[in-house]
């Protein structure tokens, strides 16, 4: 991994530009990961926080405000989790970090251990003296009114709803080591710091840029990085769209066997692929070209693979598949129930790979693809006919071209040689850019996308947006360009990009709180 220092000294940091740092709230996933990591994987979280909505691209945007339901759910989730933990001696012992609380002295000691251990893991930093004292005073009162278990239960409920738990407060004037540790762990693991990172922060070993890079390099090799990798990719590539109700069905002519289970299986296959490819290859190129799949029976049916072992990678047919854009999850999520939609597939590819938003169709445009009344006509022919008007073709030229490249995949993402008895024509020509050329199908596009500076730049900006919870600002363009150049120079090494992001000025320093 390259180790060239991006920022030789703090004085140049200002020149490179630090963007604003609005307060961030934990997403539902982050909340659940923190709870599981700090309190145990068995804590019930069935209905924890409300579902997040991706606003401006990604869930958990910086500056998200609380709402009534969030507060109500946080209370309920806290109550349920705390009741679960105190209801069993072994679990309570685990949370407290002590085995016995039969004497008054032991109970006091256990509460102290709770503050130093589980409590600080929940809030991702040591409690302040005042915080600790307030909680202990409350707990003493609850012990008197009820009993020790009730006091622990209520203390946990209070902690789980505290601002230090639900938010990531970063008090100024400069970023402290624990806040920085949280930035690292939420970016890379979608959760709080582990012991090693926490200890590094505590022991003053997270103060130089080299130390931060060293921690980040350790963390991108930790299995927990799959959480961060998947969380980014499912949103960036719109894979989660597959789970929407509209994709629970496919028309019988497309796939009579498609059920909600198929929908879930295809989604899970894309998750396993992203996790596997990032773990074993770790590059944008592999994401866009690799043919390895980890199948279950339903995914194997979709890919027409007759022999597989769950958990064991298989190679998909090179004549049919190449990378994430040719996997069922992406292909079906960008289709209608009964037909493919080349413009939607083209538009999704433009948006995700090239960061280009094609202008919307004029009002009133019929974007559906009706079946022909007579004669065998392919989707491609129908779309070409429909969008041939001069007002349409200006924008549709590029959308259609990219979309037609996917026509070998039907609305269920299954490979097809023919449509309506006619051989599929998935050839297309791109003009006016780095990806210029004529392609037999999207299979040949994958390697070109992976090598494209435009796509690598777009990917970098998506990661930056994800990491910061906001769009980059002009002041950040300097280091953003450097990070992008390094990503390109590394041949799309995603882990190296993450280490660069984690040690970029806007990550290492506290920007203005807007």
């Amino acid at each position: 991994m390259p180790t060239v220092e991006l920022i030789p000294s703090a004085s140049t940091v200002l020149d490179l530009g630090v963007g604003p740092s609005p307060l961030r709230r934990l997403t539902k996933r982050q909340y659940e990961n923190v709870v599981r990591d700090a309190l145990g994987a068995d804590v019930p979280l069935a209905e924890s926080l409300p579902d997040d909505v991706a606003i401006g691209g990604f869930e958990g945007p910086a500056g998200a405000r609380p709402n009534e339901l969030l507060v109500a759910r946080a209370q309920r989730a806290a109550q349920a989790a705390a009741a679960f933990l105190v209801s069993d001696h072994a679990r309570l012992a685990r949370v407290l970090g002590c085995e016995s609380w039969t004497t008054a002295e032991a109970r006091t000691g256990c509460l102290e251990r709770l503050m130093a251990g589980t409590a600080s893991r929940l809030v991702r930093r040591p409690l302040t003296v005042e915080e600790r004292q307030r909680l202990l005073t409350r707990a003493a009162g609850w012990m008197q009114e009820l009993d020790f278990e009730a006091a622990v239960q209520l203390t946990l409920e209070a902690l789980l709803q505290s601002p230090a738990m639900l938010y990531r407060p970063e008090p100024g004037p400069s970023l402290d080591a624990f806040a920085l540790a949280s930035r690292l762990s939420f970016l890379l693991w979608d959760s709080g710091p582990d012991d090693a990172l926490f200890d590094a922060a505590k022991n003053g070993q997270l103060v130089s840029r080299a130390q931060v890079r060293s921690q980040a390099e350790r963390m991108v090799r930790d299995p927990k990085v799959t959480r961060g990798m998947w969380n980014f990719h499912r949103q960036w590539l719109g894979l989660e769209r597959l789970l929407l109700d509209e994709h629970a069905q496919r028309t019988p002519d497309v796939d009579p066997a498609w059920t909600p289970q198929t929908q879930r299986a295809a989604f899970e296959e894309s998750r396993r692929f992203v996790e596997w490819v990032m773990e074993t290859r770790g590059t944008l190129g592999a994401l866009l070209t690799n043919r390895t799949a980890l199948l279950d029976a339903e995914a194997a049916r979709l890919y027409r693979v007759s022999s597989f072992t769950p958990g064991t990678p298989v190679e998909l047919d090179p004549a049919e598949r190449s990378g994430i854009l040719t996997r069922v999850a992406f292909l079906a999520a960008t289709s209608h129930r009964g037909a493919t939609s080349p413009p939607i597939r083209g538009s999704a590819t433009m948006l995700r790979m090239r960061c280009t938003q094609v202008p919307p169709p004029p009002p009133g445009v019929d974007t559906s693809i009706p079946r022909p009344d007579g004669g065998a006509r392919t989707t491609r022919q129908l779309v070409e006919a429909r969008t041939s008007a001069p007002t349409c073709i200006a924008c549709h030229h590029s959308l259609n071209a990219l979309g037609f490249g996917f026509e070998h995949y039907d609305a269920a993402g299954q490979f097809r040689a023919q449509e309506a008895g006619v051989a599929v024509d998935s050839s297309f020509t791109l003009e006016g850019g780095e990806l210029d050329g004529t392609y037999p199908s999207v299979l040949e596009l994958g390697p070109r996308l992976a090598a494209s500076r435009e796509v690598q730049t777009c990917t970098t900006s998506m990661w930056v947006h994800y990491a910061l919870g906001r769009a980059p600002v002009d002041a950040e363009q300097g280091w953003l360009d450097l990070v992008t150049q390094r990503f390109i120079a590394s041949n799309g090494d995603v882990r190296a990009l993450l280490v660069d992001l984690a040690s970029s000025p806007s990550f290492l320093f506290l920007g203005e709180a807007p």
Partner: protein
Amino acid sequence: MNRRQLLTALGLGALYRPSARAQPMTSPTRVVFFVQPHGHVPSGWKMNVPSAPGALVSERSLTGLAESELSDVLRPLFPFRDRLLAIEGLAHTAALEDIAHLRRDGGDANNHNVAVADLLSCARAAQHPGFPCTGGAITIDQLLAQRTVGPGRFGSRVYGGDYIPNQVVAPFSFTGASQPTPVVKSPATAFLDLTGTPLPPADRAARMARARVSMLDSVAEEYTAVSRTLGREARETLEAHRALVRDLELSLTMAPSCTGALDGSLHTARQFMQLIRMAFTCDLTRVMVFAPSPAPCAEFGYPANHDVHANYAHASIDGATSCGQTYTPTAERAMTDFSLWHARHLAFLLSELDAVREGDGTLLDHTVVVWLTELGTPTHRHDDAFTVLVGGANGFFRTGRYLRYAPLFDNPVAGSLVEWPRIGPAHSKLFVSLLRALGQTDSSFGTTSATSSSGESIDLTGGLNELHR
């Protein structure tokens, strides 16, 4: 029937405890926003209204009409026609003003994205370069929620499903710019939100409580059994005692704030409607939003593999111009039937609310349901935002009428008059009227002025006084 008998009959007897929240002397006004996606087909919605030439507002009484005289879409609301106010000719002026700006200055000008972002906010949408726009200000439901929240009463809840006009899920309700209000998508979860979490089985207090519930259940049965053997007065005495035991039983199984049951056998939409009734009955909130996902076509008589957006919406208006537009009478009828799906579920909500006696009338007499859609027509027009107010709203609105507003202004968006016709009053003015119905004194909501394509200033302040008493 007194209040306690009534509540008991509704399964809400636990409310009649000394500790229960007291009903105010005057019943509060409640609001439900019922948001239908994709607009209405005018031919299915509109009614004939005799109007004098040049009149800005025309109206027709609904109270004396036969059921068959209502339009197709409004017909399911016939039983509530005395409390119905159907409004034709409002415009999504704030959205049009936004689109006009976006066409000049750039941004996500997708007509449908802007429509969803602006429907309840009536303000410029928040722009996110490279991504779809979102609500740019607090929405009317959340403003009303802020104004009506109180001790033991939350501001609002938003129920419904995902709506994806273009690629990305787009919510309707926002607490501020780009701050979506979370949507509760499962009635069972919504029910837990209202009633609290039952204690987990391992909890010792819960074990005791459950034992106490079954103990009280058997006690109640004893009262019933014995009362059958007695004369009228003694029986009434024992029945009242039994009801108190049942109340106690319910209060042990539920969180103390509200009780009731969720009928999981009902359609999801109707389960949410029962929850709205329950929340209002207990005065847990006064503002609710229900914005269902587009209904599956099979639910309104069309092939299961079709969907409203892909198969019907854009082909539903005869004469609408756009490239590739293929009007079909089937699509027109399908969109009317889609609206009817909403009307029939709405009628269920209305009967739920009307079945609850409260103060001087029913819960429906103290509620106004606002049935809105983000588009005027399914082909993305904003000049005719068909709107229904239904419910007594404590007498604030003059109901039992069908009202038509005539176009007043040129469209803020310049272009062909077919796509961008002249427009009537802004629907944001309706929200000012709603604020007044809830005792607020705001003089405007959202964008306060717009400019027509001919340069005329359009004042968006003030309410729609024709609707009020």
